[in-house]
């Protein structure tokens, strides 16, 4: 199946509205080598006091080589106390994944990770089920 999708950079641009993105403040935890791309644990933590005046509003994940660039967008606020989220994502192939954070002052921060997805050898034939 041929799927056209925006590039990773285009997906980031549409999230930020074209604003510049700085590296830093984002700690992105994802294993560099995963044994199955169906459920890859990820955590993102952003340095922020999480006060009414200075907090993280959104944390988003984007990928380079899945059929669709978007992964998830989390909405946070001062009541979060801490800007840390975890989930499990799908990676269709070895690729770059980006974690982006938008702070209440309108700035964007990011961290990137390269992930190698090893192929499972014994894949069950779906027609057998």
């Amino acid at each position, binding site marked *: *199946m041929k*799927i056209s999708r925006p590039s990773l950079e285009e997906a980031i641009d549409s999230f930020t509205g074209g604003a510049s993105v700085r590296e830093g403040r984002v700690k992105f935890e994802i294993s560099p080598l995963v044994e199955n791309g*169906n*459920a*890859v644990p990820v*955590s993102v933590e952003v340095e922020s006091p999480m006060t009414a005046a200075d907090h993280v509003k959104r944390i988003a*994940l984007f*990928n380079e080589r*899945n*059929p*669709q660039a*978007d*992964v*998830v*967008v*989390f*909405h*946070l*606020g001062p*009541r*979060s*106390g*801490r800007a*840390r*989220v*975890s*989930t*499990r*994502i*799908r*990676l269709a192939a070895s690729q770059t994944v980006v974690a982006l954070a938008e702070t209440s002052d309108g700035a964007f921060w990011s961290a990137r990770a390269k992930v190698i997805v090893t192929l499972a050898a014994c894949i069950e034939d*779906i*027609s057998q*089920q």
Partner: protein
Amino acid sequence: MTRALVNVPKTAKRGEIIEIRAMIQHVMETGYREGPNGVTLPRNIIKRFVCKYGAQEIFSAELFPAIAANPYMAFSTVATETGTLTFEWTDDKGETQSASAEITVT
């Protein structure tokens, strides 16, 4: 049958930051997979997830097909008052389901 497991501390001190974990039984069918007969399986994912503390929304998420089946999410909030945390999610079929947990704040 949709089952969800939400994990919230039963008690917390006022002002304490607590971790909340939610896991929802859902196929999260991507819309990019073929079934046994070669026909593409229609997309059916949870699109939106919201957590409210009392009446106030404290966390939400927009999910895409790249979120793993049986989605798992962990996030945090500040314990402010004794009350109920409610979790609500909606999938592509338009079904909205919910779960809740009580917390006692001292």
